[in-house]
């Protein structure tokens, strides 16, 4: 509903807005049209008025010109009249003379007499003529003149005021003139009436028969006098005519002469315009007229304020005047009109322009409104359709019978609706399909989910079972190892005992009997086989246990900043003896100097390299084994290469599996050596350090084991140097040893061994009795088995330690259990017990130093073998040395006990160590709270 509201109002809004805007535009346009009409009308009115006024002005000018022409013509006429009268006077004179001439010719009258008579008569007659008449003879002498006194006077020398010989010239001209024609001249003379020097007009006619010049003259001054009334009449006529002219209703023509006097004005005729001022500009009217008249025609207008003839005294009426000079008179003629008259018709004219425009605007606006309404109707229809469509009602259609763009829009809108319908149908079908599919899917999912649940359940069960199995396997392995070790200890121990006894006691008996000796040797050989096989079995079990420990994460890693070069050096040093055995085998070591320190478990890494080097030596009968360490791409890379048999492609990955060994050609002849766990352990160690290990090999050509460890810069940690306190404790000569072992065989074996050392032995077969006996006998040493019925060894040790009587009695743990640390013993020996090691340990614990052999203790980074163990040993006999020194001493033929801390076991080449002659190894537990007698290996 909310969305519909603006849409529903839109068409109406648009229409009314349009109407409003149209109205505003129409009003504005009308106003503009009115203004334009007014301006145009004003221009038209003024243009027409100007055109009319100029035409009137020209006519008036013409009228003035004609008046002047009339004046001049009057003057000419008067002049001509005078001339005519002089001419006729002359003609009369000539006719009189002609009469006499005719008389002379026809009647034979005496010419001289006739001439004299004629002159006399003419002189007489002229007195009555209107003009003075006189006759000059050929010499210019007056022969006839009204004034008798002047007869005979010559006029030839008469000069006018300019010095011209007037009569001489006149006579010449008259003589040259056509027959019968008079010529005219002027000369100044004093008018007897006015006594003023005036010009006289003289007409001369030549009378040929007697060579006379007949003249008549008259004063000119009369002429202007005579002309004045004529001119006044002309002027009055002009004024009357001019004042008839109306310029735009009440305007008029006015004429002003050059001096500014009004020649013609409705009310001011005769006044001077110079004294009149335009009230608007304050300028003299005369100046205004002069200025306008001198402007180019058409621009000769000016405006001023004036009174109206019908409204005298009110000088507020604006007038417009066009002024020009009449050329012949130089008068200023002006056509003046009142602006109010000029513009009287302006409203009507403007309306006549504006009203049609207004009509057109209104009609146009109406038509536009209708048109827009019509235009909007389809839009409204379309909007309702749009609304319906937007509501989702696709059944509606826009009307298509609309012309033009709207029709086009409607048709295409409908087309869109049809498309939408099609889409909606398709959508519907798809939706239905999808729903069906969904249902199917739900079913399937349900089924699958259930199956999955079942499988997950199964997997969980299996996993649980597997874990259980793993645990069981570990337990099994532990127990089996333990169970295997215990009998193995017995087997090995007794085999050695038998072998020794046999060799010591029985063989000498048969010294003379070769057969017996032979048989004895064979028995010794067989016993040796039992022993060596037993040792191999022990190693196998150790390896299995080791791997098991790593896999199950029960190993304590001792990571420290380690130089891999040292690792390699240690490993190489350990195997050098092995390589020394085979002169055909060369060992080459190439370590890049300045390798960074890595955080590694030193011993484990040595184990890795040892393993690899052992393998290389094992599978390479002759050739070369190389160790190379270098940096590459952010990794520290170590390669151990050999020129041995190589690894088949199929085995290259599998050799890192547990219990996998490369099958060599002849399996019967060359049985696999080792446990087959070495590389697996290697891989575990390397991967634990974030590295990887692989083999590159070509069968028959050799193989290269590559390991890469990422370079991680780590700060060096200063390892604390623990203080070594060795407290030598005096030891009593007589010693009593309590042997606690539930197994009678082992108990008896150990007892035999101890008794062979001239020690007193008390036996106990369980923990409880062991504790009791220890309290009772106060032995010097307790040899304790751990796994015993009833009270186990651990509890027993704890009880012993708790009892102040027994608390200080050293306890040596002898057990088949893999981890003897933490059992509370002072030393530990793992079953099967190495006889020598056992005796050594016992001696050590008893502080007997029986063998008097020197003791070497390995130290690392200044860390000496810790613990109270040293209290058991004669202090002076212990030599602390580092690894290299240790090897030097051993190589130099050292014989005695070597104390090794727990960490050194994996690190040192134990094989080499154990292969050294006359060396007893005693491995000390990590924390020397309890001394564990170390394994003893005797070769």
């Amino acid at each position, binding site marked *: 509903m909310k969305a519909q509201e603006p849409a529903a109002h839109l068409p109406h809004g648009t229409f009314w807005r349009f109407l409003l805007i149209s109205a505003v535009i129409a009003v504005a346009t009308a106003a503009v049209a009115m203004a334009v009409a007014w301006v145009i009308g004003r221009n038209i009115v003024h243009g027409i008025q100007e055109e009319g006024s100029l035409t009137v002005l020209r006519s008036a000018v013409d009228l003035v010109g004609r008046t002047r022409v009339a004046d001049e013509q009057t003057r000419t006429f008067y002049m001509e009249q005078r001339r005519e009268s002089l001419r006729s006077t002359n003609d009369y004179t000539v006719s009189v003379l002609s009469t006499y001439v005719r008389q002379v010719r026809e009647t034979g009258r005496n010419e001289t007499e006739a001439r004299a008579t004629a002159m006399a008569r003419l002189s007489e007659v002229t007195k009555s003529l209107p003009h003075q008449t006189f006759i000059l003879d050929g010499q210019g002498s007056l022969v006839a003149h009204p004034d008798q006194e002047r007869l005979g006077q010559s006029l030839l020398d008469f000069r006018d005021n300019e010095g011209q010989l007037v009569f001489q010239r006149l006579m010449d001209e008259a003589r040259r003139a*056509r027959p019968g024609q008079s010529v005219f001249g002027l000369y100044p003379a004093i008018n007897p009436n006015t006594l003023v020097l005036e010009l006289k007009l003289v007409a001369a006619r030549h009378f040929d028969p007697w060579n006379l010049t007949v003249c008549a003259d008259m004063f000119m001054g009369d002429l202007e006098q005579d002309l004045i009334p004529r001119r006044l009449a002309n002027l009055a006529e002009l004024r009357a005519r001019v004042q008839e002219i109306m310029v735009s209703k009440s305007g008029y023509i006015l004429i002003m002469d050059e001096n500014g*006097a009004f020649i013609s004005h409705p009310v001011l005729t005769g006044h001077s315009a110079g004294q009149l001022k335009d009230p608007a500009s304050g300028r003299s009217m005369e100046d205004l007229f002069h200025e306008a008249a001198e402007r180019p025609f058409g621009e000769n207008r000016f405006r001023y304020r004036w009174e109206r003839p019908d409204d005298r005294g009110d000088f507020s009426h604006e007038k417009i005047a066009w002024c020009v000079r009449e050329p*012949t008179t130089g008068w200023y003629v002006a056509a003046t009109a009142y602006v109010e008259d000029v513009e009287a018709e302006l409203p009507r004219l403007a309306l006549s322009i504006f009203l049609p425009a207004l009509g057109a605007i209104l009609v146009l606006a109406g038509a536009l409104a209708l048109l827009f309404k019509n235009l909007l109707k389809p839009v409204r229809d379309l909007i309702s359709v749009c609304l319906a469509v937007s509501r989702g009602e696709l059944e509606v259609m826009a009307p298509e019978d609309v012309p033009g763009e709207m029709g086009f829009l409607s048709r295409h809108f409908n087309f869109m609706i049809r498309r939408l319908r099609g889409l909606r149908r398709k959508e519907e079908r798809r939706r239905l399909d999808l729903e069906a599919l969904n249902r199917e899917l739900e079913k399937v999912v349900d089924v699958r989910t259930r199956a999955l649940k079942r499988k997950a359940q199964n997997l969980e069960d299996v996993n649980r079972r597997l874990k259980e199995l793993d645990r069981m396997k570990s337990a099994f392995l532990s127990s089996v190892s333990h169970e295997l070790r215990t009998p193995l200890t017995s087997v090995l121990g007794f085999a050695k005992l038998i072998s020794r006894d046999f060799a010591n006691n029985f063989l000498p008996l048969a010294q003379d009997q070769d057969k017996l000796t032979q048989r004895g040797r064979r028995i010794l050989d067989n016993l040796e086989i039992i022993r060596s096989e037993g040792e191999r079995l022990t190693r196998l079990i150790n390896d299995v246990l080791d791997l098991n420990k790593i896999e199950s994460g029960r190993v304590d890693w001792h990571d420290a900043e380690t130089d891999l070069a040292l690792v390699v050096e240690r490993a190489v040093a350990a195997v050098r003896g092995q390589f020394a055995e085979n002169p055909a085998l060369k060992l080459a070591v190439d370590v890049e100097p300045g390798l960074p320190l890595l955080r590694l478990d030193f011993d484990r890494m040595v184990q890795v390299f040892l393993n690899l080097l052992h393998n290389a030596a094992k599978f390479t009968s002759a050739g070369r084994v190389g160790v190379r360490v270098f940096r590459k791409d952010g990794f520290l890379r170590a390669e151990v290469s050999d020129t041995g048999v190589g690894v088949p492609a199929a085995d290259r990955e599998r050799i890192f599996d547990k219990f996998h060994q490369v099958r060599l050609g002849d399996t019967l002849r060359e049985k696999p050596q080792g446990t087959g766990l070495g590389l697996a352990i290697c891989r575990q160690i390397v991967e634990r350090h974030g590295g990887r290990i692989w083999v590159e090999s070509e069968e028959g050509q050799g193989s290269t084991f590559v390991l890469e460890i990422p370079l991680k810069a780590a700060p060096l940690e200063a390892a604390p140097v623990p203080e070594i306190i060795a407290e030598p404790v005096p030891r009593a000569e007589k010693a009593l040893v309590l042997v606690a072992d539930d197994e009678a065989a082992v108990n008896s074996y150990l007892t035999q061994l101890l008794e062979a050392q001239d020690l007193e032995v008390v036996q106990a077969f369980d923990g409880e009795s062991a504790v009791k006996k220890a309290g009772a006998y106060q032995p010097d040493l307790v040899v304790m088995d751990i796994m015993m019925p009833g009270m186990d060894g651990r509890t027993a040790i704890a009880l012993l330690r708790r009892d102040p009587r027994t608390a200080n009695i050293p306890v040596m743990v002898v057990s088949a259990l893999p981890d003897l640390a933490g059992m509370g013993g002072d030393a530990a020996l793992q079953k099967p017990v190495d006889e020598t090691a056992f005796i050594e340990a016992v001696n050590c614990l008893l502080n007997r130093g029986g063998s008097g052999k020197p003791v070497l203790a390995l130290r690392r980074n200044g860390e000496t073998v810790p613990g109270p163990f040293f209290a058991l040993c004669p202090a002076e006999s212990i030599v602390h040395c580092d690894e290299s020194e240790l090897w030097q001493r051993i190589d130099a033929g050292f014989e005695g006990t070597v104390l090794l801390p727990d960490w050194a076991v994996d690190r040192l080449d134990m094989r080499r160590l154990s292969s050294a002659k006359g060396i007893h190894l005693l491995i000390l537990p990590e924390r020397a709270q309890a001394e564990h007698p170390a394994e003893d290996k005797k070769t």
Partner: protein
Amino acid sequence: MHRRRAVLAAILALCTLLAGSFPARAASDVLLGMNYPLTGPYSVEGLDQIRSARLAVDQINATGGILGRRVVLVPRDSGSDVLQTRLNVRELLDMGCRMIFGGASSDVALEASRLCRLAGVPFFATLAYSSPLTEEFGHRFVFRECNDAWMTARVLGPWLNEHFPNKRFFYITADYTWGWSTEGALRRNTGTEDVHTHPGLLTPLGSTDFVRELELARDAQPDVLVLVLFGKDMAYALEKAVEMGFPRFCQIVVPNLTLGMAERAGAANMQGVVGTTSWNWKVPALLGQRRGQAFVDEFMHRYRRYPSSPGASAYTIVYEFKAAAEAAGSLEAMDIIRALEGRTFHLLKDDQTWRALDHQDVQTVFLVRGNPPEKVLSDPLRLDYFEILDSRPGSQTVLSEEAWKAARIKAGQPPYLEPAEGARP
């Protein structure tokens, strides 16, 4: 009351009339005297002169006058009469006019020239074709703005020689100095000096009846009828000649044509008539001369007519006087004369030069022929009378220095214009 008013009006009118005759003027005003025929046989030329002169004076006053002094035009009607001219010019000179011009008759011009010489005031002949004006009667104070008879003949002659070689001519000539010199020059330039083969008749100025002369001419059956007539005389004669059918068998030639004459004669009569004119209202447009066109336009606006050649002459004279005065920086006669002598100017047509030798305005003269009536009437002002056939620059037509000197000597005058002795300062 009415009587009193009438009397008052009469007195006032008289006063104004007198005032009109002798307008009170400021002493600094430059008076230009104009003696022109408002009436009489040449009145048609006179009206244009006064109109153009008035226009020029108005324009000059509107732009500051001459040397900063207002110009006042003092016109007098001569009626082409020598006596009236004498009266007028004397009056004008007495009023202190700095220059006299105007006139349409050579007789009048000669009389004015004579009087001006005496008074030491420059006279500009406006419409006086007669050669003696600048030859035997020439002097330092007279200038002729229009072409002289010789120039007319030098333009008309070649055309006649080309179109009517060895044809018979008949001359009807106004019997005064202009007529005589024009006929003489024309005869010399067309080789028709023989008066028996090419007869001629003289008629007095102001004649209105040419029947006798025309009958004689018709009897002579000439190929070319030369009417050395001017003004109304020419109009009467031409009217009669056309009436008598001359155009059917001969070419009518009127040596000096003006618009006013043609208008008075009428378009029908003027058709085909050949003559010369020093100027025509179409000339500025033809030459692309804007100054001249401005004059034509302003004249047209003011008087609803085209200016004619006498009008152009009067206009040119007023402006040349102004130019000379301003060039000389003086209104003194001799300064103005010296400034004008040899001066070349450019006003209403192409270049014109006041030849120092004889004060003749050396200028282009146009050969024109009367348009047919329909052409004349198709003009907005119905005044397109002439078709310009040809034009000749003044240097080709003007009387040569040698000929002029010869004429001077023959007339008993020195072969130069006398120094301005007797000139009034």
